[in-house]
């Protein structure tokens, strides 16, 4: 992993995932370290994402590193028409690692090819967001004590949701069973189902929550976004079907945990928040440890 960019979740092997998760556990036990002293990390946010940026910056600060960068494209030379290549080549002169968020898909792969320092993809449009996937895996392992043989429910927008696609790919190494709950129009794309079939991984598709939730180890919720529907009536019909409420968790397994990449709108009712099975806020904290682990692994510290 040394000096290697992290652009897509399949850039890492199963062994890499496990190494990162072990390291994240170490940082959870010892969060403040001065191993990044004298290092500069650039956080280039071509579109705002406060949550992700603060999580990365918190990770760098806890490791004793310094941060340069910008928080949206309007305050950078992009506004003057500079190409991505020129921005990256310039910033690579000033930093040891670049963390980049960009609305255009494939921008992170391209940046990693023109940069002389490693690039960590903090989200490139609807394509990839690998650090989110690693923190999701960390949250799963931490709450379940293992990654193998889990029954994982993915709920909501399974068509466009990049987090669910990356999580599916990464967890496919650990013999999971998947249950997909989504409206017909936002079903898991065929390419991912073919991928699971090829690997001999069981999956089931549902259009609403049913009794089956009693089998779940992990319920991973995502937002059904209004702008994904061409027909507003269709949205109105389905929007309330995919809301998780506290009463629906009755009779579920003790080890069940509810995850959500956040921000949430209404897809998890606030009455779930006090249920010990709600894990989404702790999940966000795990992001800091996971990003400490990713940054220090890439910089070989």
């Amino acid at each position: 992993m040394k000096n290697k960019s992290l652009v897509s979740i399949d850039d890492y092997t199963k062994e890499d995932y496990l190494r990162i998760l072990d390291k994240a556990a170490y940082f959870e036990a010892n969060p403040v370290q001065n191993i990044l002293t004298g290092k500069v990390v650039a956080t280039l946010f071509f579109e705002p994402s406060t949550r992700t940026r603060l999580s990365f910056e918190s990770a760098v600060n806890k490791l004793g590193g310094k941060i340069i960068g910008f928080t949206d494209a309007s305050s950078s030379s992009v506004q003057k028409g500079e190409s991505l290549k020129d921005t990256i080549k310039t910033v690579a002169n000033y930093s040891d690692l670049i963390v980049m968020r960009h609305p255009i898909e494939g921008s992170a792969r391209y940046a990693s090819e023109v940069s002389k320092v490693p690039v960590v993809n903090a989200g490139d449009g609807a394509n990839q967001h690998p650090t989110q996937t690693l923190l999701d895996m960390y949250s799963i392992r931490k709450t379940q004590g293992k990654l193998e043989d889990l029954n994982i429910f993915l709920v909501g927008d399974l068509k466009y949701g990049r987090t669910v696609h990356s999580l599916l790919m990464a967890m496919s190494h650990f013999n999971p069973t998947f249950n997909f709950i989504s409206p017909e129009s936002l079903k898991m794309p065929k390419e991912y189902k073919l991928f699971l079939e090829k690997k001999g991984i069981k999956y089931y598709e549902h259009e609403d929550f049913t009794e089956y939730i009693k089998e779940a180890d992990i319920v991973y919720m995502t937002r059904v976004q209004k702008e994904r529907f061409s027909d507003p009536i269709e949205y109105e019909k389905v929007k309330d079907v995919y809301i998780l409420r506290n009463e629906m968790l009755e009779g579920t397994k003790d080890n069940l945990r509810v995850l959500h990449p956040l921000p949430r709108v209404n897809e998890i009712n606030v009455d779930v928040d006090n249920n010990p099975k709600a894990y989404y806020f702790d999940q966000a904290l795990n992001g800091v440890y996971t990003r400490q682990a990713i940054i220090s692994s890439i910089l070989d510290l």
Partner: protein
Amino acid sequence: MNSDKKELRVNAIKNGTVIDHIPANDLFKVIKILGLQNITNTMTLGTNLESKTQGKKAIIKIAELFFENDDIDRIALAAPNAKLNIIKDYVVIEKRKVQVPDKVIGIAKCVNPKCITNFEDNIVTKFTVVDKEHIALKCHYCEKITNKENLRLQ
């Protein structure tokens, strides 16, 4: 043999390459992929010819030009059934079918309007061919699939 008849419709060449069984609609794509518009060799193009197997077909005969396998296989995206006849001294010394390559570099355009290759100038596109039979290309950058139906050349 049928092929003898077809050969008569355009001038025979002494040495060179004949590319046969190009779908008539895709002739100009093939020309562009191979950059034939820029060469000075004697060349005969025939199109809208009757074909027993594929409706209207096109044919290209180029004198004194022989392709490397890697170069010629690039036309497989536009003409997956194309056949090559290598001619030496008016005799076909080799027949070959084009093979869909594993990687496609700098030919196709990514179908995804939000892909970086459609935003930033001077990026050479790269694709992995994930389905050789139906032609499906996975973009090295945005990871989206471009199919034969929405394939455009860069």
